[in-house]
């Protein structure tokens, strides 16, 4: 298939692997901060083909994994509210809060529907004027513009029964927060391809300049990832720290100005609670006051049960890159995709699920 098969080309892969072997002289750790990269790296067995000098760490890139437990609890309580139809993307369904999950509540009778687009949620709102339709939005700039669009569109259509519970986050300040924590050595960032298609390359500049850490925006096919890693290794080896774009067929330095304008129109920057990291200033997005009528938090009041974290689960440390999934005591034992304990094993983009599913027998320890 065009635009897929050429990025899985065996000869090109071999060329890049040979270049990596010739270039990489010292041990480095690179972190990917996008769940799609986490999956692509495991699914394609990338760790088996790159030189042993390069260690790949998964960071806080899985949208549902970084969503705080209390936020999921809140969404679940909202979904249980009389007259509310909760809509969300499919990856949220199985993620457990402190006591329950959307899947369990749906089976118990709550009206929870998976949509493929926020515009579908608007359609449900139009078709069900006697119901309150709430969209639960999590994740990064890959999805937040579509949520912003739905709010603008709902306003335009005069919809009174549509609101969003927005728990969107922005990535670059969280990368800086990890560096500031200093728990783990990071020599370079594999920056998210689709997020960057929206925000462009400028938001990473301060990481390269102030922290001296190379950043490369990378695509998701094996050839993309190999080339992206090579670009990072070349920067490290030559003592440079810059923001570069490998994923040029999708990402422009200026990003997608229309999407950014939409985000700025609807959302304001706020603090956000990240699972495993805690509150990071200026990494959240909240609806602006002029859109308060579409803010589910303003329209409904729910009673929140006390939050509790799953026992024995190391998701927090895994999201910070401090532990690799198989260094968690319960990984593959009491925590498997069939019986997941924490969100990193539940979500398809979670690091634990990716490691378990694709390379639980071939991971290099340490």
């Amino acid at each position, binding site marked *: 298939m065009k635009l*897929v098969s050429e990025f899985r080309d065996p000869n090109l892969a071999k060329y890049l692997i040979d270049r990596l072997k010739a270039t990489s002289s010292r041990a480095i750790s690179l972190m990917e901060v996008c769940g799609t990269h986490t999956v692509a790296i495991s699914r394609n067995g990338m760790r088996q*083909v790159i030189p042993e000098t390069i260690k790949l760490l998964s960071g806080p890139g899985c949208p549902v994994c970084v969503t705080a437990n209390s936020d999921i609890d809140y969404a679940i309580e909202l979904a249980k509210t009389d007259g509310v139809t909760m809509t969300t993307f499919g990856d949220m369904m199985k993620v457990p809060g402190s006591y329950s999950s959307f899947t369990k509540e749906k089976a118990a009778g709550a009206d929870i529907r998976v949509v493929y687009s926020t515009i579908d949620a608007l359609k449900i709102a139009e078709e069900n004027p006697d119901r309150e339709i709430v969209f639960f939005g999590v994740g990064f700039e890959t999805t937040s513009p579509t949520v912003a669009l739905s709010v603008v569109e709902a306003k335009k259509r005069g919809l009174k029964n549509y609101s969003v519970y927005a728990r969107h986050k922005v990535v670059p300040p969280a990368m800086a927060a990890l560096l500031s924590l200093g728990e783990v050595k990071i020599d370079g960032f594999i920056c998210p391809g689709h997020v960057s298609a929206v925000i462009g390359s400028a938001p990473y500049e301060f990481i390269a300049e102030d922290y001296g850490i190379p950043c490369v925006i990378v695509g998701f096919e094996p050839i993309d990832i190999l080339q992206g890693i090579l670009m990072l290794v070349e920067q490290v080896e030559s003592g440079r720290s810059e923001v570069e774009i490998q994923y040029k067929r999708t990402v422009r330095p200026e990003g997608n100005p229309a999407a950014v304008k939409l985000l700025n129109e609807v959302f304001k920057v706020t603090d956000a609670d990240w699972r495993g990291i805690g509150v990071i200033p200026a990494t959240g997005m909240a609806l602006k006051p002029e859109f308060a009528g579409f803010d589910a938090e303003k329209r409904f009041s729910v009673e929140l049960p006390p939050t509790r974290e799953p026992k024995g689960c190391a998701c927090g440390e895994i999201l910070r890159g401090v532990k690799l999934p198989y260094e968690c005591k319960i990984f593959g034992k009491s925590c498997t995709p069939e019986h997941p304990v924490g969100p990193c094993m539940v979500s398809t983009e979670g690091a634990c699920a990716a490691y378990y*599913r694709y*390379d*639980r027998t071939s991971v290099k320890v340490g």
Partner: protein
Amino acid sequence: MKIKEDAVLLAHGSGGKLMHDLIRELFIEKFANPVLAKEDDSAVLEVVGGRLAFTTDTYVVKPLFFPGGDIGRLAVCGTVNDLATSGATPKYLSCGFVIEEGLSLEVLERVLDSMVEAAAEAWVTIVTGDTKVVEKGGADGLFINTAGIGAVPEGVVLSGANLKVGDKIILSGTLGDHGIAVISKREGFEFSSPAMSDAAPLNGLVADLLSAAKSVRALRDPTRGGLASTLNEFATASKVGIEIDEAAVPIKPEVMAACEMLGYDPFHVANEGKLIAVVGAEEAPVALETMRRHLYGQDAAIIGKVTAGPPGRVILKTPIGSTRILDMLVGEQLPRIC
């Protein structure tokens, strides 16, 4: 057809006059055969001697009609294929209909026509049936159960526990067509080249294959759970390893594109007209050629082999020279796909 109503009413399942009209004017007329026409409580069939294969499946696909098929074609082909991949020659089907009050008779008629066509293609006779009508909201349009009986020829013993190290894995055609066709239609994705369901009866293909190759160890149609689940079932049952060459697995560009876009793994997506054959290495080329000569095996390919292990593990070789585990599907990927 003499039925005056436009839609199915609760009374059509009442056991009274309307039900008899519906059965006589629609079902018996469509499925026209002497056994059914007797309208007795059971179909009385000649015993063929030897071993029988007996299977049942229930079809709840949504929507009822999708590119390349419909619930009727699925209900016949699915059960025929379960018999065929057991090595049986499918003979008779039963069908049970659960109809939601208000289903248009035109829809029901189209479904029955499709069943008639598929049954004719598969050389099976629908010999007994049942109809229930439930109130609005008690079902979703139409659910169909079919059961099937087939005769297993002497000497044919197929089992997922029969795999031997060195055997070849042959896939009869492209992966994932059915699942992507149904989900695209259900969710209203307007792809420029839409996927078409592969729903088809495979008993002809199986008959050709079994007469061409004696070392067929196992056959299975990878429906829900896809190729990955079937291969894992084989590897576990036979206590062997299986190694698949990702680049050798045929996948249509439109299916690949939809999977990439929607985040599905084609190895987990349902098929309704494909089978996996495990064949001794020596006969694999003959088996492949035989399958490719059949309408439903034109894209057949040898996609991998049986290895010593580790037992129960299915490994995929990627195009870039690495390997990964090919696990069974966990949880529900696409509900109501068949």
